[in-house]
């Protein structure tokens, strides 16, 4: 018995040691590592599914390329990338949606300069369609580091509002901040619910409705930073003052600071605690069906963005840069691998590949209508099921939303993609609001060299912002000014002053686009 136990133990140990030395199966092909966001979709394996296998079969095998997908946690992507870059096993494409972070990767030495001739040679279609953006935005310190996916106009980010509540209190849909506050007060009186307020963190666009148009270019360049709050700027102060009013008036959730992610805001909305909810609406969004399951009488409308503005005639909107995903090539990637990456990007645009990646298999995932648009089959659940955001995290290397040849077709397709059946009006209204605000939209300033202080202080300021803004919002109205002044001082001291100084220096030196 003892002997037997010894043998088992010895074997177990030998096996565990042996595992570490298992030789990798040698393959003669080149391996490319393609990043893909992991958004934690239930039941979805981001690195091994019908579509990754299809890509391997259709692109990989014929070209002698082993396509390996690397999951990047969407909510911790910089952390993931940084660790993989340090360990030397980062994907061959280093991507990010926001320019300052992409520039930060370059500043750390994670990227290699690109040879545009090589890019043109192996990915001619991709090159032709994006070279304008690459030439305009892809250069840093005299070398080209980035290529860009395209960003078609999208207007599916919207705020849903409970129209039945609006009607119940005898009001109309609000078109200014004053009207919105009055409506919310009426809701409170009637015992209905709050305005949703999700904890502001990570992405700071909250002050746009409080900025004025036309904007001051220098101030815009100094204060507009997606990753850092413009806490000490006038529009921020106005925003916080308004939030303080809403909190003290009891028209937002008294525990709004616990709504740290979108799930909590969603739960409040579908459970009837809140009457508004902002999201990227998609045809497959479960929010409406969940709400109707709880409140069959619920009616919904798109909230006019002007309802966030003090003065709708003079407000400013945040614009996007014309590009979608920003991509650099890993500094450690060799020429053979890089060429295979270019080929992969090109392959995506060839034939029906993109269409299949975006829509799935004809006759299973969708049927074609008279215009050639893919109409998704309801409740499809076969092996070729698309991911919950329609495989976007695979085709985002090429475009940010699906495109169609004509405006008319595009609008029709957008409705199919974005509007849950029977709720087309939500998207139609959203487009109208979006178009109306187009003249007041400007993207963030683009510095042509890394603003290093942003990367250094971003996380500290993000944490401090949450603490201070919640404090400002929850202060008694008469104490607001004092609390704000103290908070602004603390914010500046925690590194914001250094960011502002560096940006001012760069701006004055003309290092900005």
């Amino acid at each position, binding site marked *: 018995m003892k002997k037997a136990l*010894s043998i088992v133990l010895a074997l177990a140990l030998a096996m565990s040691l042996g595992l570490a030395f298992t030789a990798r199966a040698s393959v003669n092909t080149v391996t490319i590592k393609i990043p893909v966001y992991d958004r934690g979709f239930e039941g979805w394996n981001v690195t091994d599914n019908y579509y990754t296998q299809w890509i391997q079969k259709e692109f990989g095998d014929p070209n002698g390329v082993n396509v390996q997908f690397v999951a990047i946690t969407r909510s911790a992507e910089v952390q993931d990338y940084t660790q993989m870059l340090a360990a030397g096993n980062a994907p061959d494409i280093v991507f990010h949606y926001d320019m300052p972070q992409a520039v930060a990767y370059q500043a750390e030495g994670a990227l290699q300069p690109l040879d545009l001739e090589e890019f043109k040679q192996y990915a001619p279609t991709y090159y032709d369609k994006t070279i304008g953006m690459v030439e305009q935005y892809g250069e840093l310190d005299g070398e080209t580091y980035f290529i860009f996916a395209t960003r078609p106009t999208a207007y599916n980010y919207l705020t849903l509002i409970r129209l039945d509540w609006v009607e119940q209190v005898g009001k109309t849909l609000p078109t200014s901040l004053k009207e919105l506050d009055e409506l919310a007060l009426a809701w409170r009186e009637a015992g209905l619910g709050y305005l949703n307020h999700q904890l502001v963190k990570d992405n700071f666009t909250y002050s746009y409705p409080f900025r004025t148009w036309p904007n001051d270019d220098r101030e815009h360049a100094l204060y507009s930073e997606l990753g850092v709050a413009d806490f000490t700027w006038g529009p921020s102060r106005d925003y916080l003052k308004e939030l303080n009013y809403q909190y003290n008036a009891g028209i937002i959730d008294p525990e709004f600071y*616990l709504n740290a992610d979108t799930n909590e805001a969603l739960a409040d909305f579908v459970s009837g605690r809140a009457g508004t909810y902002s999201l990227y609406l998609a045809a497959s969004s479960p929010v409406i069906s969940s709400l109707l399951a709880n409140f069959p009488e619920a009616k919904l409308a798109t909230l006019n963005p002007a309802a966030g503005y003090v003065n709708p005639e003079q407000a400013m909107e945040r614009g996007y840069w014309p590009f979608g995903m920003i991509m650099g090539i890993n500094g450690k990637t060799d020429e053979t691998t890089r060429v295979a990456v270019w080929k992969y990007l090109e392959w995506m645009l060839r034939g029906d590949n993109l269409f299949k990646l975006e829509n799935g298999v004809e006759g299973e995932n969708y049927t074609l209508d008279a215009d050639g648009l893919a109409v998704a089959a309801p409740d499809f659940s076969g092996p070729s099921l698309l991911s919950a955001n329609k495989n976007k995290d695979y085709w985002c290397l090429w475009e940010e939303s699906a495109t169609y040849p004509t405006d008319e077709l595009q609008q029709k397709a957008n409705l199919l993609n974005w509007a849950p059946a029977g709720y087309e009006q939500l998207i139609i209204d959203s487009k109208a609001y979006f178009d109306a605000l187009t003249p007041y939209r400007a993207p963030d300033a683009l510095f042509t060299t890394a603003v290093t202080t942003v990367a250094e202080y971003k996380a500290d300021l993000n944490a401090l912002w949450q603490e201070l803004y919640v404090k400002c919002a929850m202060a008694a109205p008469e104490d607001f000014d004092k609390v704000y002044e103290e908070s602004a001082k603390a914010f500046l001291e925690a590194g914001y002053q250094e960011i502002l100084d560096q940006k001012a220096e760069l701006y004055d030196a003309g290092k900005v686009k």
Partner: protein
Amino acid sequence: MTLRTDTNGGLARRDLRRPGWGKTLRNDWELYLLLLPPMLFALLFKYGSYAGLVVAFKDYKILKGFFASKWVGFAQFEKVFATRDFARAVRNTLLLNGLDLILGFPAPIMLALLLNEVRGRAFKRVTQTLLYLPHFLSWVIIGAIAYQLFSLSGIVNTVITNAGGAAVPFLQENNHWLASYLMIGVWQNMGWGTIVYLAAITGVNPELYEAALTDGATRLRRMWHVTLPGIRPTIVTLLIMNLGRVMGGSFERVYALMNVATTEYTYTIPVLVYRWGLESGRYSQATALGLFQSVIGLLLVLGSDFAAKRFGEEGLL
């Protein structure tokens, strides 16, 4: 390695001719084999990572690597000590862990004494198992449940308000948060902590109890004069080990229970290390802070060990 001989003589004297390495290995090779994986683990993950401390003295850029990064001496430490959050983090770390020690350390001892007096075997077993249970819940789960139960519109407050009371901001106000944090910690650790003490109690000589009983000692007296002195070495050892953690403490516990409205006590050293090291990639400063914390922790252990010896206890080292 040399084997320590028993200075009291006795058995050890007969064994003066110590067996050689080879023979020991041959005799008990299964035991050494069993020891190997944990030893490898400790060497690799506890000592292997010591080399990484070098980044505290460098301006470490991960893509340059350990060797190519520039030496900066103590500049990173100076930077850390100058930050706005540092003083607050040190204060909070000491405060949270100090209070935790005061409240959390005696709790398992008292509970063990009580459990030891329970006579119903079935009741005792069930109680013990239930008391161990929270130890196996991760802090993330506990944090989520705590916010479900103790939010202003949660079950507990609903009960309170329906009974005519005012809602208590258990986790929504700084001082309440601190109290809740401590209580939840005691609840989570108390049961598990009893195991060592219960084991120690079984080692107390039963004759002492019999003698005390003959002298007419009550249950309380026996607990006080027999059980407690019997487990005193265990208590001292654990106290020394716990003192070493006063400077560290659990990252997960604070992180899972914190919220942005009650940050007065939640800026602690582990939270800062996480934010600097993992969120901002300021590895050098995070390492410097971590090293500072460890050195203080080590001094606390050595100091308390020294103090324990002065008071006539055996100490740890």
